[in-house]
């Protein structure tokens, strides 16, 4: 056997890593070059302050792109209720002005959730390393890029040096074999994966998602999956470049043009794992068996299919897990054996970096068209991922479909995914949400979150509780 040949075979992650090594240290870490740094207002202020205190300047000012998203109001752009939110937004303004970093203002139609606008503008491209002080940066990995979230100290490090000192992750392949059935979306696939491997299943690994079901997805769907890699424990989610990727990337504002486009395509076509390369861990998922997913607990791994009953902690022998289930049932005010039909929803949120792209809005609109939301729903909102998505949706008349059925049509931002602005749950309220985290208090102190796909969430708004989208008329 020719071991030399095997040792040269690389995964997509290996290739992206090797292309960005500036220096290999002798302690298993490497200095890795960062091509694109995306910035938002919550995790950057202390980094800019640190830079200033040390009298340092950004290494490469014009590769940074900033956008306010977490704190922005989605109802009336001019009214920011919380003075502290306002300070954070103003601090980002000032830091970008002082350093010369390009920033999309709140009133700019290109403004939106940071992980949405990168790909949308062509600021995130295949083959890049992309970082942002936000764990959902993995979204960009769907383009065949190495993209991951970092803390504020690393934000400062990237600003100052355009590099990070990193230890390479191990390689994991999640192979989603076969095709999904009717009504099953990318969100169901990723929730199913998280349910299978657990929220720590990918810890220490870079996950490459592959298989027929992944190849058949649009870029929007692929981004939904890479977005939630972090909910499977992995800070890196990746997918190979194919025709779908290239079609999506072509002709975006920051995408290379003409001859350069041809050169880029030649290079990008190699951005896939070599055939028969060895992964440290392989997980196989049968797409044909995936059913509509809904979370019941306070961790994304606490997920079941729409037709399952709420689980009984006594069914597990693992004591730690059993305690976790008990705490979650208690917090969610649920009892073992309950069915989703019996669990009334108070609020509905369609949005977030997971599910606020045009395809998500189309899927939700299709479900609610010509119907009214249930009288039991106190508030249902649709928050597009960017100003451009909002415009596109309005061009297609989706806004009117939502408004006619009783939804509020809002301005783009992170909104009720984490409620840093005034879009929040009240204590005890239960929400059907297309976002990514069902942690205690995530959408507001005492609030209860059930995660699901856009069409499942839209159907829950109409019925007042979750229903099987495959039977929904």
């Amino acid at each position: 056997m020719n071991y030399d040949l095997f040792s040269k075979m690389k995964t997509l992650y290996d290739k992206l890593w090797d292309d960005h090594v500036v220096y290999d240290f002798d302690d298993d870490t490497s200095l890795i070059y960062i091509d694109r740094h995306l910035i938002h207002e919550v995790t950057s202020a202390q980094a800019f302050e640190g830079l200033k205190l040390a009298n340092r300047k950004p290494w490469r000012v014009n590769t940074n792109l900033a956008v306010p998203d977490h704190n922005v109001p989605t109802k009336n752009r001019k009214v920011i209720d919380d003075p502290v939110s306002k300070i954070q937004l103003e601090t980002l303004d000032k830091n970008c002005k002082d350093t010369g970093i390009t920033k999309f203002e709140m009133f700019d139609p290109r403004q939106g959730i940071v992980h949405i606008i990168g790909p949308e503008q062509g600021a995130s491209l295949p083959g890049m390393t992309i970082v942002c002080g936000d764990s959902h940066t993995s979204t960009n990995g769907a383009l065949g890029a190495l993209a991951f979230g970092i803390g504020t100290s690393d934000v400062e490090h990237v600003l100052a040096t355009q590099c990070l000192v990193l230890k390479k992750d191990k390689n994991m392949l999640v192979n989603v074999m076969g095709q999904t059935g009717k009504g099953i979306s990318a969100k169901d696939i990723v929730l199913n994966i998280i349910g299978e491997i657990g929220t720590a299943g990918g810890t220490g690994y870079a996950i490459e998602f592959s298989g027929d079901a992944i190849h058949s997805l649009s870029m929007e769907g692929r981004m939904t999956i890479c977005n939630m890699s972090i909910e499977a424990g992995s800070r890196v989610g990746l997918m190979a470049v194919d025709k779908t990727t290239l079609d999506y990337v072509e002709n975006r504002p920051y995408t290379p043009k003409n001859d350069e486009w041809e050169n880029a395509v030649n290079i990008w076509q190699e951005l896939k794992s070599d055939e028969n390369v060895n992964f440290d861990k392989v997980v196989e998922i049968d797409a044909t068996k995936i059913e509509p997913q809904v979370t019941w607990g306070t961790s994304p791994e606490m997920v079941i299919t729409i037709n399952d009953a709420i689980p009984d902690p006594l069914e597990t022998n693992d004591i730690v897990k059993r305690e976790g289930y008990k705490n979650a049932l208690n917090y969610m005010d649920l009892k073992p054996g309950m069915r989703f039909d019996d669990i009334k929803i108070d609020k509905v949120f369609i949005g977030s970096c997971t599910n606020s792209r045009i395809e998500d809005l189309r899927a939700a609109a299709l479900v609610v068209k010509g119907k009214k939301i249930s009288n039991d729903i106190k508030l249902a909102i649709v928050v597009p991922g960017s100003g451009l998505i909002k415009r596109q949706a309005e061009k297609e008349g989706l806004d009117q479909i939502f408004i006619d059925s009783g939804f509020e049509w809002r301005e783009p931002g992170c909104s009720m995914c984490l409620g840093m602005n005034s879009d929040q749950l009240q204590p005890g309220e239960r929400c059907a949400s297309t976002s990514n985290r069902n942690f205690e208090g995530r959408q507001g102190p005492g609030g209860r979150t059930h995660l699901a796909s856009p069409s499942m969430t839209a159907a829950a708004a109409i019925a007042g509780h979750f229903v099987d989208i495959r039977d929904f008329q």
Partner: protein
Amino acid sequence: MITFKTFTGIIAPLDRSNVDTDTIIPKEYLKSIKRTGFGSNLFDAWRYLNNNDSKTQNIKRKLNPNFVLNKPPYNKAEILLARENFGCGSSREHAVWALSNFGFKAVLAPSFGDIFYSNSFKNGFLPIRLQAEEIEILFNYVKLTLGFKVTINLEEQFVETQDNIRFIFNIDSSLKTCLLEGLDNIALTLKYSDSIHRYERNRSKVVPWLFREI
């Protein structure tokens, strides 16, 4: 940056798995633009009874008497003991700042969220991975002895009880050095400025579109 020294401290038990960064410091309290002042909102929803009250000064809020960190001697604890996947969730470094501002210097758990783990070392804070069985033993010790203390020695990589039972832990040498010496990571990287410039020159010939201005 501060250096990490061997110390003996009280362990506070937090018997939960998947403690996420939203729970460590809820988003209502992320809005400071400084690295300090997060300690009084550490585990806010568990620590206070009126936990929907980010407008009231912390000192005027009612503490939850049943929450471990409100019970002496754990209000003076320097080491946190938790279950698997501690610090999962968001990349917010505020979670580490909040633990550190409260007075914690280390956390013991079977596993950690990747980003939380990496953020810790940038702040002189030590996350220690022990086997789940070892964590269980420590929970039992804490149950039996109020104010149970251990010594953490990073240099020799062990946690030791006062009756001399040692738990050895693994840690990457780069991270260990970073804590022991309290290094300025940015200054260290800037020593490689020439390598970075060289990389940029070579790379921009191959993929020039990555070097266009935004």
